[in-house]
């Protein structure tokens, strides 16, 4: 069933690629940040700020 995880990854990639390039980049950065805190139950204001900063960095003009 390793294939299924691989398939899941591939299909997810396809969904991402359907978005405009700047959204793809934004999404990847946001989720990379979230992956660092996989199990954190508490949502601290600092993390919300981090998400906002990523958006501001990616959409700067």
């Amino acid at each position, binding site marked *: *069933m*390793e294939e*299924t*995880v691989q*398939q*899941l*990854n591939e*299909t*997810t*990639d396809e*969904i*991402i690629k*359907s*978005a*405009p390039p*700047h*959204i793809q980049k*934004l*999404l*990847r950065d*946001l*989720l*990379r940040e*979230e*992956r660092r*805190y*996989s*199990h*954190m*139950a*508490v*949502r601290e204001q600092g*993390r*919300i700020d981090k*998400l*906002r900063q990523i*958006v*501001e960095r*990616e*959409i*700067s*003009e």
Partner: protein
Amino acid sequence: MIFERLLIKNFRPFYGEQEILFAQPGQYNVTLIHAENGIGKTSLLNALTWVLFGEFSDDVEQQTDIVNHRAVREEDDKAEASVTLHFRNGDYKYLIRRHVTRSEQGKRSMSLNSGVYLQIDHLGEYSEPKNIDEHIQGLMPKEMWGYFFFNGERIDHLAMESSHKKVSEAVKVILGLRLLEQTRSDLKGQVSKEFRDQIARLSDADTQKIKQEIDQIDQKLVDKRAGHQEIEDNEVALQKRKAAILEDLSLNESMRLFQQEFSERERAQTNLNERREALRLEIVAWLNRSGPMAFSEALVQKARKIIEEKRTRREVPFRYRAPLLDDLLHDALCICDRPLEEGSPAWQAVKALLGQAGDDALEEAYMTANATMQSITQQLPNESNRFRQLIADRTKVLSELRQVGEEISQIKHKMGDRAIETGSDLAARLEEVEKDLRDMAGKRAELSTVISALVSCREKREAEFDKLSRREGAAALAQRRLQAVGETISIIDTILEHQVRRVREYLSHEIDTAFQRMCRKDYWAELTEDYTLRVRKHVRVGDAEIRDVSKSTGENQITSLAFIGSLVKVAQEREQSKNSFVLGGGTFPVVMDSPFGSLDNEYRQGIAEWLPTVAPQVVVLVTGSQWQGVVDEALAPKVGNEYVMAYHGPKVPKVSNMTRLILHGKEYEQLRVDAEYEYTRIEEVK
């Protein structure tokens, strides 16, 4: 998370410092711990939950009673309980230690001091973080430990219909889907709001007014959605109650029979106790009456021998009575009318007889003693037989009492905490719950309508806000950011929808694979779209037809185990995935207390063969009876490390079923009556 070493000091039943080294992932990944019920299996499992989360499972009684009683007695207020766990996760090594001290100040007041310490070693760099809970949460979600450390006999509830929400939550949290939902929610909520705030600050009065309206709508939406969630939670609780009532209804008949049997056994126990008391009184009476007789047999024999010798010598019974001879000499006349002149040969002959004569009292004493001894000799066999019979009767009654006691205990175990209700009571409760459910559904529908109206209103306001905010420079940038967030949310929605579906399908497949390995029947298991664990079978009536199986406790247990095993497996695969869109996952050990429960051999063998594959690291706690036969054969080849828990105390515990355990040709005593205070020690099996 892979466990390496556990140190337990004065924690609950464990006295002194005890150590367990865990078997590591690989061919021999099972750590096996032998322990009988009632001496600390649950406490050992809870040493892990306590050190990591500071929590105990629901089945632990007296949860504040942490420091071992013997340690408290010996060390007074300095007595400390602690648990230290060494584990690793990827390149990180962890040492977590939790401790508590307890001093008895008199018998009523107690003081508790506790603390927790975490040390992290990342490739030789050490740190001691303060936010310990957060670090542990990052490795294993606190609310999820019940899926990794559990009592196998109590896990069957996951496979019940009422658990679908719990199952769904576990899947989403452990596999990272909940995090994706949270990301979406944060982007839509807080992050979007901050961009709207920026736009409003940089815009004209009209734009600011619309923004305020949107904020007001958002606030109302938060309240209404909270109300909606509350209703949903109530509905889940009511559904659970309804399921329990329906189960009670079906169980009621069997419970009634159990109750009947229980009452009969209790009556038998009362009768036997009365009989035991009557026998005790009879034995006491016998001992008072005939006890000395039983111990006087040798003495009687000796006395009889002496008398017999005297009789042979014609010394007894007395041929002449002294008062008669005295009278003859006094009257100087023999009974044959011949004169007895003092000093004459006849007088001297009678006088000489006085030396052989006895008096009346002595004569009577002889007669009585002789009669008594004859009586004792005759009675002795009968009395001895009677005593033997009384003792035999008592032994039989005690044996029957033990038997009845065991039967009562078994019936109690089967009945659990359930009380019997009449069918009409249950029907009334069912009706009441169904009415509440209808009320809730009505309220939920009303709230859904309000929420839809608010969402629609908000969309309109948002469109106006967009239009106005585009006109201005800095506000326009914030607007573009807000729009980018909206587009990102839309993509996350699609990913979520896709992953939720595929992960469930994948899990369902894994659950079935595990289920098939444990259950040899022609059934299969599924995780349905509403996250209910079902067992199904083909029923061939005309065209093939699929039917749900009404699961037994055993089938519920293996379905639940299959679910946990699959969750652990998929979590590990997700953790190892390099794709940044696959969130969550993790490597988790599984610790199971009594996974074989009271299952029959067929299931036991299946579970024993499957257990080593359930997680990279498996810890199993078993009783002697669970370990025998098929379980031993199937699981022993996978055991890396093995331990025995031994009870020490002043007497044999009531629940004791302990025997001497023979492992690898060596004998291990599980019960030692050698201490003033009860405690448990863990010994390594070599």
